[in-house]
Structure formats: structure tokens, C-alpha cells
């Protein structure tokens, strides 16, 4: 076999195996979308798994939080935000959440829908965080003094305000944590701001003035 024949054979064999290889890879992968290399900071420590909390379905969409200790000993959480993705965060330790006497570690989030009917408003708002074990029940107090129970599981909480609630005037102002006796143990202010958008700034959108609720 001369050199030219060898080259042609190599090209043909390469093309054949490449076709087979691609076919096998597609069959194995099922044409699935790519999965990036995992971020080691967001992987649970060896032998541990992520723990699911406060899973709930709002207008057919699944919301949840998962907690875990990562490979570097940090305390981390993942939060599902339907139709957009998963937010993750880590603090040095679970104890760090409750430093300086803090009993409720609260965070507020929000989003606008694509093509939102009102670019000055939120279409979804969520309040999430962590509370000390002595807090057995949580309630959110709105600016109009209405109250809403907050799903709480093993010190992890998440409550979601849907567009219909927000458009009818609901605006979370404060979290109230109760102990087993029903006594208020702790409160935390919720600093929800209007969306950081030019439309909201141009319209001068502001949070409603809270009333004095008993």
C-alpha cells in the first residue's frame, strides 16, 4: 500500500469512526443540554447530600431551598427561582448566620416577568432565610397590616408573593418569629425596595409607608 492509499484509508476510517462516535455520544447523552463542570464551592462535603426544605408550588411553579455544608466547611444554600435558575450562597458556618445576637437571618428577592405589564413593579417577591431553633412559627406583616404565615422547616424559611398579591397592594414589611409558647421571640425588618430599573426610578416608585400595626 503506497503512502497516498494510507492517507485515504486514514481519512475514511477517521470519518467512519467519527460518525459512529458522534452517534454514540448523542445516544448516550440523549441530546441533553450541556452540563457544566460543577463548582466545588457549591458541592456538599464528602458523604453528605443537600437537604430539601420548604418546597412549595406557587401557580404551578416549584420553589424550594436546599442546605448543605460544602467541601470547605462553609454552610451553603441553593434556592430555586422557577423559570430563571438557582441562586446559591455560602457563609463561613451556620453559626455565622446568628452572630451578634441575630435570631432571624432574612433576605428578600424579587423579579419581573419577561414582558412585564408594569416595569415599575415586581411580579414576584420572596422572603427567605434562617431562624434560630427556638423560633417555631414565622409570620410576615405587610405594610397594610395584613399577615401571612411563612413556611418554616428546620430553621429554614421561604415565603413567595405572587403577582396578584403584589398588584393588589401586598408589600412585606416585617417578619415576626414566635416561640413554642406563642410568644414573640424576635422580629426582623424586610427592606424590600422597588425594582432597580430606569422605569421605576423615572416613575418615582417607592415602597408604601408602613402603618402602625398592633
Amino acid at each position, binding site marked *: 500500500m503506497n503512502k497516498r492509499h494510507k492517507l485515504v484509508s486514514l481519512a475514511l*476510517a477517521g470519518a467512519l469512526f467519527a460518525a459512529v462516535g458522534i452517534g454514540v455520544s448523542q445516544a448516550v447523552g440523549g441530546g441533553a443540554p450541556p452540563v457544566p463542570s460543577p463548582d466545588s464551592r457549591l458541592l456538599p462535603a464528602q458523604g453528605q447530600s443537600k437537604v430539601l426544605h420548604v418546597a412549595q408550588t406557587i401557580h404551578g411553579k416549584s420553589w424550594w431551598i436546599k442546605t448543605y455544608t460544602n467541601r470547605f466547611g462553609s454552610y451553603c444554600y441553593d434556592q430555586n427561582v422557577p423559570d430563571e435558575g438557582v441562586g446559591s450562597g455560602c457563609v463561613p458556618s451556620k453559626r455565622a448566620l446568628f452572630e451578634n445576637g441575630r435570631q432571624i437571618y432574612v433576605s428578600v428577592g424579587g423579579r*419581573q416577568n419577561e414582558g412585564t405589564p408594569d416595569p415599575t413593579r415586581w411580579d414576584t417577591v420572596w422572603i427567605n432565610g434562617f431562624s434560630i431553633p427556638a423560633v417555631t412559627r414565622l409570620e410576615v406583616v405587610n405594610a397594610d397590616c395584613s399577615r401571612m404565615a411563612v413556611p418554616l422547616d428546620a430553621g429554614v424559611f421561604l415565603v413567595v408573593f405572587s403577582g396578584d398579591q403584589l398588584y393588589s397592594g401586598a408589600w412585606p414589611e416585617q417578619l415576626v418569629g414566635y416561640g413554642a409558647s406563642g410568644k414573640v421571640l424576635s422580629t426582623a425588618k424586610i427592606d424590600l425596595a422597588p425594582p432597580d430599573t430606569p422605569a421605576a426610578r423615572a416613575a418615582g416608585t417607592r415602597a408604601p409607608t408602613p402603618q402602625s400595626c398592633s
Partner: protein
Amino acid sequence: MRRSFVMALVLAAALTIYPAVALADQLCASGGGTFIAGEQRTLGLTWTYKSEWSHIEGVPYRELRYRSDGSVSFSQDVASGVIYSAFSNCPNGNCSDAFRRTAVKNLGTRTYSWDMDQRALGAC
């Protein structure tokens, strides 16, 4: 001929594992520096599957992701103490790129450092 066959076999094996090899994401936008209380920093609009915020643990801050029309697809206020946070377009573990700008706002009362990355699985 045997050498050609072996080389083709190696090529086929490489292509078979190609998806795993091709999964490295790429940095599409990045920035860092300092910002004063109340100030916001925003990266450019690119295809993005993941936004990352780091080295901001000294102050409370707001994580933001904007769509191309300026609407907010994600906003989360983070209390001081968080050492690393990220947001990935990976519902049910299936990741995809979306056209987004990542931003951060200093919610504290003093100047602090900020650091953000914006990554895509495909082209930026």
C-alpha cells in the same frame, strides 16, 4: 493500515467523550474594584448561564440580573457575611445561556470591594 485504524479509533473515542470535554464554560464579562454605599456596578450584556459575586462579604449587597429590555430577571438582597454567591440558569440541572447583565449594589454604609463574573456555556 493498522496504525491508521488505531488513530481513527483514538479520534472516535475523543469524539465520543466530546460533550464532556466541551463543557468548560467561558468567562464573558468580569469586573472588580470598590464602590461607595448605595452605588451599583453592572457588567455588559452577554450570553450568560451563570453570574457570580464574591469578596463582598463585609457589607450587605444586592445581586441583580437584567434582561436586554432592562427588566430585572433576578434580584436578591444578601446580608453581610455571605462569602460567595452565584446564580445559574440550570433549572432541573439542565443549563442554558440567557442574555443577561449581572450587577451588584452596595447596600451598606461604607465603601467596599466588589467582584463579579459572568459565564456562558456557548459563545458570549
